[in-house]
């Protein structure tokens, strides 16, 4: 039986359960998405967009899917975080508000902010959810998004009404947990109305050393003149597989920062698509990956400039050691008529061991003439003269290497606009380079 078939059977068998455990707007797209998935199957490596990561293999494990939404018996607790933030969890795919955060929910909802479980909101406010659900991550465009739309039941929902500024960052800790191999289908929906502001820190973690596959689709709508920060930190274990889609739509005058950091993982495939639908938008997209052992990190990005006078800046950095594999595939599309577009893309990679592999594919597709676009990509090793300079000043080789590595990735970290988060992540990255950060349990972002 093909891998697809087992999921198709599950879907057919549990169709009613899926309906029962989600709201109407989510269920409305389900059949179309399933039909599309059934027709396409999982993407193969023969497809340009999935050249470097084998999706079939990722989904081949016999995972458990908690479709009946059996409550987790595990007593999930987390210490007060080191940063001052609104703290929430998504465990596998279920939104979870820790008791100490309940006051935050009340506080934010008083301001008119809708925040909480996507499933809950799709039942209580179906119109609001239906207006946005599936409009950025459109089903029929990608088999993984189809798969997610077909199986999605819950996730995080945030709606910030116009002119509302959320003062503190929202920290969303996504944990894959379970004592059998698990597949979690998480769906997040974030909407910022005109001139709203929000910052989200999404931490992806795992508990337990089982094979865990997290299939996450996050849709973000950034209204006119709204400002949105999206930081993602992945720190999981070597058996963990993460397939994440982040689809953002930007309206006129909006500004976004997306920063995607991978410290520890097994196999990660991130796809970020930003559609710039309005004029005078600012977009910053950056990411960093530190890989060793057999880590596999694939970042595929697409920035679509549909409208004139927008600026985008993209920066990705990889540090690869041992047998780690890195892949960066970044595409910038400038549509016909998108004049005065400025789009810059940079990808820099360092390979530290003979068995590390790096695949880079920076694409530009430009259909307008009055634009300024560039991309630069390089792969190399640490500058020997810089290393020599540091050693000649009495810094031991190991320490000098570490310093240079840290300096190498620091401009990605500079793209974090929350000081406390920046400091915390700097510390984590330093620990990571020193080998003091094993994986999830000790990262401490959520402790």
């Amino acid at each position, binding site marked *: 039986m093909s891998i697809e078939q087992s999921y198709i059977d599950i879907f057919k068998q549990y169709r009613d359960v899926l309906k029962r455990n989600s709201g109407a707007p989510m269920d409305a797209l389900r059949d179309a998405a399933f039909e599309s998935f059934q027709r396409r199957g999982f993407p193969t490596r023969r497809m340009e967009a999935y050249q470097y990561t084998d999706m079939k293999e990722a989904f081949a494990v016999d995972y458990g899917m908690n479709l009946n939404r059996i409550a987790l018996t595990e007593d999930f607790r987390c210490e007060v975080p080191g940063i001052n933030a609104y703290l929430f969890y998504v465990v596998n795919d279920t939104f979870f508000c820790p008791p100490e955060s309940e006051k935050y929910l009340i506080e934010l909802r008083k301001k008119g902010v809708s925040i909480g479980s996507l499933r809950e909101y799709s039942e209580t406010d179906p119109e609001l959810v239906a207006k946005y659900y599936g409009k950025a991550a459109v089903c029929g465009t990608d088999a993984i998004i189809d798969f997610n739309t077909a199986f999605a039941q819950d996730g995080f929902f945030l709606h910030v009404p116009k002119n509302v500024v959320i003062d503190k960052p929202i920290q969303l800790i996504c944990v894959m947990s379970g004592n059998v191999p698990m597949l979690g289908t998480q769906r997040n929906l974030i909407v910022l109305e005109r001139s709203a502001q929000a910052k989200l820190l999404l931490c992806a973690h795992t508990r337990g050393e089982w094979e865990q596959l997290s299939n996450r689709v996050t849709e973000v709508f950034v209204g006119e003149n709204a400002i949105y920060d999206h930081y993602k930190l992945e720190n999981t274990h070597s058996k963990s597989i993460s397939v994440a889609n982040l689809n953002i739509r930007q309206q006129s005058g909006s500004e976004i920062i997306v920063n995607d950091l991978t410290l520890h993982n097994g196999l990660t495939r991130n796809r970020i698509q930003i559609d710039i639908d309005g004029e005078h938008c600012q977009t910053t997209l950056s990411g960093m990956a530190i890989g060793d052992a057999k880590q596999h990190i694939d970042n595929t990005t697409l920035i679509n400039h549909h409208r004139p006078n927008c600026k985008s800046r993209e920066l990705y950095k990889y540090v690869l050691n041992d047998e780690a594999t890195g892949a960066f595939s970044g595409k910038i599309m400038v549509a016909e008529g998108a004049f005065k577009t400025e789009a810059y893309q940079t990808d820099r990679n360092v390979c530290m061991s003979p068995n590390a592999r*790096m695949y880079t594919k920076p694409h530009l597709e430009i*259909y307008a*003439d009055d634009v300024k676009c560039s991309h630069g990509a*390089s*792969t190399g090793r640490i500058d020997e003269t810089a290393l020599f300079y540091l050693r000649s000043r009495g810094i031991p080789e190991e320490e000098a290497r570490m310093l240079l590595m840290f300096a190498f990735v620091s401009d990605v970290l500079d793209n974090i606009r929350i000081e406390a988060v920046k400091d915390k992540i700097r510390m984590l990255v330093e620990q990571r380079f020193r080998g003091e950060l094993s994986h999830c349990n000790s990262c401490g972002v959520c402790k």
Partner: protein
Amino acid sequence: MNDNIVDTITKGDYKYGFVTDIETEVIPKGLNEDVVRLISEKKGEPEWLLEYRLKAYRHWLTLKEPNWAHLSIPEIDYQDIYYYAAPKKNSPKSEKDIDPELLKTFDKLGIPLEEQKHLAGMAVDAVMDSISVKTTYRENLAELGIIFCSFNEAVKNYPDLVKKYLGTVVPYTDNFFAALNSAVFSDGSFVYIPKGVRCPMELSTYFRINAAQTGQFERTLIVADDDSYVSYLEGCTAPMRDESQLHAAIVELVAHDRAEIKYSTVQNWYPGDKDGKGGIYNFVTKRALCKGISSKVSWTQVETGSAITWKYPSCVLLGDNSVGEFYSVAVTNNYQQADTGTKMIHLGKNTKSHIVSKGISAGLSQNSYRGLVKVSKNADGARNFSQCDSLLLGDKCGAHTFPYMDIHNESAIVEHEATTSKINEDQIFYCNQRGISTEDAVGLIVNGYAKEVLNKLPMEFAVEAQKLLQVSLEGSVG
């Protein structure tokens, strides 16, 4: 920018669009094993070559046309093509025996075929439709031990050499068009430079498609033995016709220890008219094998013609310390589409590659750079630098870059840079201020932009290429 100027440029005429009225021998349209046998028979080929063709043909049947390029290729009916066309009066004994019409053709093309043109100091092999018409200067070259002849002659006179190298760089299994070519190739050029010989003159081939509804499938094989050097030029033209014609060639280069091959192309196949009607489909497989240590291969191309270009001259850097270079200017106008670039495969230690690609798109054309730099596990100390710039003239055209970098070695340094922009208004204004018309200014700027590549061309070609650039973009922005 002035619309009229863009119009004038885009209307730059194709001056090689004449048809020569030469009696041509063709075989029936279509492709099957009998046609392959017939071609082989007409050429009087040995059994092993026929076997090779048949193997390639059978393999071709199992393949599908590649569709990954950023091109929209109309469906090609491979049974509606003449696979063999030859000027009837061929195998001339001396210049006097050459069909005068043919001589006129080459005169129009400006090929130094005649005695007087010997001053130009080029040895020329001219391939019309599928037949190599004339190879000049052969005797002078033979004194040095250099073999420069048509492919067909090489098969007859130097079968061991051909057998040894044919298909070693581009096997018939390589891709759809390579398999097709391997099955039906009709002629081409063969060059062998013996050990330690520096070829004293530029070797050159002119390709011309003349007969209607024919495809041209030539094959070039250049072998440079230890410590040798050769510079080879290739030029192409075709008549203006309403229907499109297929050109699927293979070029194989082999460089042994410390040998250097410089391969330059000025490609000016008929690009189709202003409405995108007709034109040549240029689907070419070019690859060089830097087999020996410290060998060097340098590709230089100026691509101004063809309705659709699908071409990736590549270097396999097998020998330690070998060097691969790729310099390209690709101009597209009207409805032209180009997907061109290079592959640099680093296998040996301390191998170096350098890529400079300049794309210029105007009108409604699409111009893409597609390149691969691959550093294998054992290629310690590999070094690559790539630069690909695009210039857009007009708001209906597209410029795209698709570089791939696969790095499997930690000591490699691979860099890639690309920019896309239009001609700066300030620069035009600056020139205007100094009394240079906008048209001239654009010409000046485009030429300056392409200079880095044009400088790599041999003298005679550089002049021609510069003129071509001007014709292709005449009156346009530049």
